[in-house]
């Protein structure tokens, strides 16, 4: 007799648990597959935006400056000009600039990574290729520090966009002083 009376609530609790499990199983499966589809659908859109809006203009600008500086070094050393030192300094400084130094922050990416960290305590994966590149650059920095010792600690800070802007002004002045005429566009 006891069994009969007790049976019902137990079964109810059980079926409730099964129901919850079933619903969350299906929701989770849908969520996982939705993430994959959503990601694949948006990759190209993001790629094109980053390519055209950030990568190309920054690369073109820095590349132009480097090209101009390299010719100035060649031209001024031919003519034995006292301006050569300045040209060399600018050229060397420009060559040490990396994309990571001057790339603007991706605020949406930072915000989203922060949300992940807060809700799950997990960091968002960085694309492998970019992760590898950053690691190589970190290694480069370390080797530079080792080889130059502590002789010139000020040199170890990475250049910034502000530094690049200053270099551009110096480069423009140098072009004028060299008597050349360049369309900077």
């Amino acid at each position: 007799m006891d069994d009969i009376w007790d049976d019902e609530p137990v079964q109810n609790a059980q079926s409730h648990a099964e129901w919850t499990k079933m619903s969350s199983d299906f929701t989770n499966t849908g969520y996982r597959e939705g993430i994959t589809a959503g990601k694949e659908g948006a990759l190209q859109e993001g790629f094109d935006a980053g390519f055209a809006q950030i990568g190309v203009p920054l690369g073109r600008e820095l590349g132009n400056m480097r090209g101009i500086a390299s010719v100035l070094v060649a031209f001024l050393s031919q003519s034995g000009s006292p301006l050569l030192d300045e040209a060399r300094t600018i050229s060397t400084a420009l060559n040490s600039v990396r994309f990571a130094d001057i790339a603007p922050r991706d605020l949406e990416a930072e915000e989203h990574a922060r949300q992940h960290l807060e809700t799950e305590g997990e960091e968002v994966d960085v694309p492998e290729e970019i992760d590898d590149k950053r690691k190589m650059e970190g290694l480069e920095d370390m080797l530079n520090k080792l080889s130059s010792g502590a002789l010139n600690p000020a040199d170890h800070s990475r250049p910034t966009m502000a530094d690049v802007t200053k270099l551009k002004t110096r480069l423009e002045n140098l072009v004028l002083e060299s008597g050349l005429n360049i369309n900077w566009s």
Partner: protein
Amino acid sequence: MDFDLESLVHVEQDFYDAGYTDGYEHGRIHGLIEGRALGREKGFEMWEELGFYEGLCKTWRSVLEMQGKQDSRATHHITHLLDLISKFPSVNPSQEDAETNANMDISRLLRLIRSRYKALCASLGIVPSLRATDAEGGSDEDAPTTTRKSVWKVNAAPKAEDMSF
């Protein structure tokens, strides 16, 4: 009993769909972020090289003018090189563009630019930048270069593997 089973199937689908919709929105955010990160690196890499040639051309042109050598072979190379660079897309072309426009053979255009640059260096008697040397080494591994080309050229139907290299 039949009715219950039927509605249960719908309920499963409803749960799945609700999950899918939320997941899709979340996945989009990740796709945009990751795509942007890859795209800006790629765009920077491509145009740093082209920009270097561009700046070099503009400066040498001025040097040659100053030296009264406007009609030299070098000036001729410079004109052609600047023209080729101006044809290079600064926006990732869509697949339709690539198919309808025969000039959109980007890897060919890049090869033309690099060889014209090396010809210019030869006529000026200067050593070509490592950028062009890299390109020569790159021709050995033609396979990855070809898949990469598709990454930013015909990437209209991207696969996750393609994008993350």
